[in-house]
């Protein structure tokens, strides 16, 4: 119990002392997770819609692969991306390993199937109806896409929030591809893992509380916009 009390005090102190390292870690965590979520959204939303609305050979197999990828182990993703970005890897010449860019890539690989899967399920359930209504009222293919996005906005929001949650809370992939380098690639989760390893439990718990607080704030903001959207009828 003392740990929790101490860590709560430590969390307050971490945030109120304006420690440069701590704020650097928080900013980098948010940057990496937001960037990967944005890239994953740009890939996952159109892919999910296309998968939900079109029939083609191999769709069932592709769906199964996406569902499987929704629960990809983070360390496997980290390892694969690290191998590809390592000096002897296919993309070694880019020299991205142990940089924030590598962390964004790894998290994008983790988050994209989640967003694709959720959007696919939503468009499978309502997409055909929306498409039919748009078509019978005189809409073209572009109108169908815009209407789908408008009709499924709550589902899209859920997909993005879930993706962001996965990105901000994962540790395995960013640890492997980022290397947890101080002032360079250290993020909240790797900071927690490191302090746990060093026996600094109150520091680890304190950062955990900060992580939870940030997740709560981000989700509250997104939930607020989601509710506003649904109240628009």
């Amino acid at each position, binding site marked *: 119990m003392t740990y929790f009390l101490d860590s709560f005090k430590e969390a307050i102190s971490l945030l109120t002392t304006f420690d440069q390292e701590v704020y650097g870690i928080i900013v980098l965590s948010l940057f990496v997770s937001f960037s990967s979520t944005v890239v994953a959204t740009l890939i996952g939303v159109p892919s999910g819609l296309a998968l939900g609305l079109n029939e083609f050979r191999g769709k069932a197999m592709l769906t199964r692969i996406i569902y499987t990828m929704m629960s990809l182990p983070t360390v496997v993703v980290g390892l694969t991306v690290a191998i590809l970005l390592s000096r002897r890897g296919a993309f070694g010449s880019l020299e991205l390993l142990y940089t924030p860019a590598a962390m964004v890539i790894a998290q994008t690989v983790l988050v994209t199937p989640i967003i694709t899967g959720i959007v696919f399920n939503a468009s499978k359930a309502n997409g055909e*109806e929306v498409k*039919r209504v748009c078509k*019978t*009222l*005189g809409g073209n293919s572009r*109108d169908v896409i815009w209407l789908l996005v*408008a009709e499924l906005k709550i589902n899209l929001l859920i997909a993005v929030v879930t993706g962001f949650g996965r990105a901000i809370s994962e540790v395995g992939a960013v640890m492997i591809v980022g290397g947890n380098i101080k002032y360079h690639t250290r993020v909240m989760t790797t900071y927690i893992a490191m302090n746990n390893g060093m026996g600094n439990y109150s520091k680890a718990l304190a950062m955990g509380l900060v992580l939870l607080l940030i997740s709560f704030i981000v989700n509250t903001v997104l939930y607020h916009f989601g509710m506003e959207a649904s109240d628009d*009828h």
Partner: protein
Amino acid sequence: MIIEINSVKKIYRNRCVLNIPSLTLAQPVIYGVVGENGAGKSTFLKLIAGLEPVSQGEISYNGKPLSAETIKQITYVSQSPYLLKRSVYDNIIYPLRLRQVPENEAHTRVEKMMAMLQIESLRDRGAHRLSAGETQKVALARALVFEPEVLLLDEPTANIDSDTIALIERVLKDRKGMMTMHISHNRDQVKRLCDEVLHLSKGELLTTEY
């Protein structure tokens, strides 16, 4: 307006569910489409609406094959219409916005349509909070507001009260210059409302009698 159906077949999983060798619909009147369950009535309307492709043959509208352009004058309302997740007003104005009708004119047309179907009080209500009858009236208003040349109705009055049915029938009767195809299982309604009848059975057009 002329709809010509030539050697049209619709086949699902090796089963022919609709086979119409030749049919020409040329009058701006109300056609009743009747027949037992599974006769192919809904499939028939969906093919004309361009919602499903024909397996064989061709359907043409005013001499041109059905395409994204030609079906802009044809609209379809199902038994359980899907209303967009927005207000009743925004649902009805949607097809006018698709056609880039000036906002003032669109507004006037929507108001007129709501008055005709007696749904002015629902104007700002979320479309997902409506009863079955209200939903059907909003769907009909949304389909009629852009003045289509062909209106396809798939059992629009099933599961709704008699007052709403009477109102919908009155609105349909009042629309001049529009071809309406109306699926119904209600013999009295078909006699009351329809000028001509298409009788389908097991995917074949039997007669134009009922």
